[in-house]
């Protein structure tokens, strides 16, 4: 089976003073459709670089990154950007940008505007996805500025899901004040990925936050170490774990 995403022999370095620091060193990783992979690494271990390269936001210095059989380096920046607005969704906790005075539902609906939908249809879809991630109708009308970090993560997830991606890439979504909130968010994430049959690539500084993924990978000094013998994938269970869904506000 052709993997949905494959990184083959991928290397990436960043300049540090007069020398190059390797962040990824001949990394191999394959993710099949509907699979889930968790990347564990300490701060500055290279996991964010790995995720950005996997999502096509950055290109590697060497090696091949293919999504759905297409070599990302061979397509234009515009096409890569379209991929990022469609088949690949990238969510990073630190990338939260909401317009002042924006309502939650509009924040989630806005990306659909580019897809040619009217705002009314886009809002309807946004409401459905918000409901799916546990943000009720009342909360969806609130201002984004009023959201807690945990609520913001659910809204970011909804904004990513509304475009119906095939691969969801999340960088450090565990930075929540409460452990219970974190666990609930991850249970929701696994359930949503399973129900929607999308592949999941998620990175965290905490192994505990990556529980339930099909494959666990650690990254250090540019190298990957995998819980699987080959760096490929175990499928998510067909049914979501019991009690994994939604909390209501």
């Amino acid at each position, binding site marked *: 089976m052709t993997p949905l995403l494959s990184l083959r022999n991928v290397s990436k370095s960043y300049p540090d003073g007069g020398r190059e620091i390797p962040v990824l060193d001949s990394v191999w990783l394959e993710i099949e459709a509907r699979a889930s992979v968790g990347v*564990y690494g*300490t701060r500055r271990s290279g996991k964010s670089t790995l995720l950005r390269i996997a999502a096509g936001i950055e290109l590697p210095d060497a090696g091949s990154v293919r999504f759905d059989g297409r070599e990302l380096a061979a397509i234009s920046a515009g096409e890569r950007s379209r991929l990022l607005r469609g088949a690949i969704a990238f969510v990073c906790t630190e990338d939260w940008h909401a317009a002042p005075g924006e309502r939650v539902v509009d924040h989630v609906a806005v990306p659909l505007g580019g897809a040619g939908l009217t705002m009314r249809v886009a809002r309807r879809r946004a409401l459905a996805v918000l409901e799916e991630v546990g943000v009720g109708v009342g909360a969806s009308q609130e201002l984004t500025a009023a959201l807690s970090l945990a609520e913001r993560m659910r809204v970011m997830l909804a904004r990513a899901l509304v475009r119906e991606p095939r691969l969801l890439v999340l960088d450090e979504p565990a930075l929540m004040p409460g*452990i*219970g909130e974190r*666990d*609930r*968010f*991850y*249970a*929701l994430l*696994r359930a949503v990925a399973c129900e929607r049959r999308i592949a999941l690539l998620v990175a965290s500084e*905490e*192994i*505990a936050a*990556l*529980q*339930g*993924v099909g*494959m*666990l*990978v*650690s990254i*250090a*000094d540019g190298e990957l*170490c*995998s*819980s699987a013998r080959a760096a490929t994938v175990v499928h998510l269970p067909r049914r979501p*774990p*019991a*009690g*994994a869904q939604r909390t209501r506000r």
Partner: protein
Amino acid sequence: MAAGNPEKTKWMRGPSTPLRGALLGLLLERPGHGGDLANRLAARLGETWRVDTNDVYRLLEQLEKTGLAVSRDEPKRSNHRRTHLVYHPTRAASGALSLWMETLLPREPVRLGLQAKLSVARPQDAQRLLVALRAYERECLVLAHLVHPADGEARSWPALCMECTRDAVYAQLQTEVDWAARTRRRINEYLQDSH
């Protein structure tokens, strides 16, 4: 990675293998009597190991029985009229230590086994250690992967305790993964600098 000939790995059986391996490494560095080796072992492994001198004598006898050490009565430095038993490595000892470095570790207590190897490793063991550390890191990831995930709905006291237990496992494994990665980095940096 693992050794093949069962005769050659016979001495590695049992829970005391890490200490036996470390003792063998110390013997290869320098022969010594039981008390001396017990002191050197305690200094090398640290207080957490609680090295018992009687255990050291027992382990040295085991090494002698398996043909990796030989003991001789030799005069004491402090009093030449008195003797004590000094242990020396045999010709088979160096190969046996290399084999131990390459041998997969049991699940428990894995870290202790690796630590024992690190405590007496020779420069030529660097690659073996890197392989062992990588295997250990992978083992920790596999164990973390086997933990049944929380469903995020813990509300009862038993469920909370279960989650805390699960968290303890994750915390321990994360520490181990970090330690293995850090140790590999140290060895790699040493290898780079020495070339």
